[in-house]
């Protein structure tokens, strides 16, 4: 039996097509995923992301714990209300998970993926030299995304989120709202108790924010060039071959996996995760082979981009490959351009054609 979020009944009531996702019964779409995608690009959409795992680390010792486990440095967080994106690495430099770390008045809050919940909780427990308190929280989470998201969220919640910088959060009573997201649009993610989430979801709907499902979330995040754990990176791939070198901070501390990624860097990184754009008609898909002038690669995530009207993908290809390549689709080789993601930001195409 799949787990249900606090908003489950509202999805069913809205006629959503429900699917199992990481053990949760989640909305795939509420009719048309393309309409939901366009709502986020042009006005505002909302996602139930309550399946994500929220973990609080309230003790003073959480700082040392996170500095050792997160490959980005939580000391960059200047004060409560600041957030950063990072990865947890294993000793081999593979990615255990990606996460957002929020600094709070008391300690930190981290949000990790749904599918990695058990693994991450075990990882934390096994590496807790500091004996810091690790508390999983049973909270709902709603992402409101799109050019009108801030205005609509403010009008409904009364919380002053327009003044928040990107990757900043405010807390008011039992709600935390952060200016973060997974779509390439402006917006917020609200973490709050289930009952309050139901009320907020209803109010947002009345204010014209369109419910959007997991399918739209996937096309939006891929257009935005954002990795999906388990697909674009996993325990076997390092951040250096996953377009995540920018999340590594080698300042004065050791962290799990540091030695492995430094050794990989010193030896020369053999591959990179980058973007592909299909030049003709068709759709790029996960697992398709990419043939470049310097070797073979693979598509890690591929979709039809509703915003651009073309096939786009993230692919892991030989480090030196650039310009154009070919993708094998049903026995035929179709030309693609190798481009630097993201593909779309704030509703517009942002990638450049290869020189």
């Amino acid at each position, binding site marked *: 039996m799949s787990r249900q979020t606090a908003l489950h009944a509202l999805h069913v009531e809205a006629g959503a097509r429900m699917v199992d996702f990481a053990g949760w019964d989640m909305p795939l779409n509420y009719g048309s*995923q*393309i309409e939901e995608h366009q709502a986020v690009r042009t006005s505002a959409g909302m996602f139930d992301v309550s399946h994500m795992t929220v973990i609080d680390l309230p003790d003073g010792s959480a700082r040392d714990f996170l500095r050792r486990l997160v490959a980005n440095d939580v000391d960059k967080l200047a004060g409560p209300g600041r957030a950063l994106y990072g990865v947890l690495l294993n000793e081999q430099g593979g990615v255990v998970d990606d996460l957002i770390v929020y600094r709070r008045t008391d300690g930190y809050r981290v949000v990790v993926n749904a599918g990695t919940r058990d693994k991450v909780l075990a990882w934390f427990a096994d590496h807790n030299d500091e004996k810091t308190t690790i508390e999983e929280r049973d909270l709902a989470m709603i992402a409101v995304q799109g050019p009108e998201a801030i205005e609509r969220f403010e009008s409904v919640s009364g919380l002053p989120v327009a003044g928040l910088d990107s990757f900043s959060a405010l807390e008011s009573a039992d709600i935390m709202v952060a200016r973060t997201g997974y779509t390439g649009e402006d917006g917020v993610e609200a973490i709050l108790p289930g009952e309050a989430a139901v009320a907020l979801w209803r109010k947002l709907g009345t204010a014209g924010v369109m419910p959007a499902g997991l*399918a739209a979330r996937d096309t939006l995040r891929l257009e935005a060039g954002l990795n999906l754990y388990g697909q674009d990176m996993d325990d076997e791939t390092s951040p250096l071959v996953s377009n995540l070198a920018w999340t590594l901070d080698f300042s004065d501390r050791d962290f799990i996996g540091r030695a492995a990624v430094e050794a990989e860097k010193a030896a020369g990184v053999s591959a990179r995760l980058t973007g592909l754009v299909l030049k003709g*008609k*068709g*759709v790029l898909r996960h697992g398709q082979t990419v043939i470049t002038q310097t070797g073979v690669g693979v598509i890690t995530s591929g*979709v*039809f981009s*509703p915003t651009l009207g073309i096939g786009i993908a993230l692919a892991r290809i030989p480090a030196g490959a650039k310009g154009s390549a070919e993708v094998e689709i*049903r026995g035929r080789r179709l030309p693609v351009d190798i481009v630097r993601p993201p593909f779309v930001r704030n509703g517009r195409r942002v990638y450049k054609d290869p020189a």
Partner: protein
Amino acid sequence: MSEIPTELKYASSHEWARLEEDGTVTVGISDHAQQALGDVVYVEHPEIGQTVSAGSEAGVVESVKAASDIYAPVSGTITEVNETLEDAPETVNQDPYGDGWFFRIEPDDPSELEDLLDAAAYADVCEADEH
């Protein structure tokens, strides 16, 4: 619930077939199939003049979600493909039994149509699909 016109024949792989007055057979995918696929974004047609046998691959339909093969419901020669789907693949979602047709076949043996499912039998296939 999906629409299943009674005047058409169906394959269990979710294509519909209609015998036209000129003796050709028009082929498309059912309302049930387009709903399951979601937004169609790309259609790959067979070649005109290509011979196909009943149950063989004769094109591909891709939605945002997945790629799915189209099978020829009867054996014969492809005489026409619906070129409007190249620029407007969403027509498959909007009008699966009308403007969203895929291709026409000149059948080798029109009686092969009798081997296909009628609307009632196809409705059972769809129902089984949902469980």
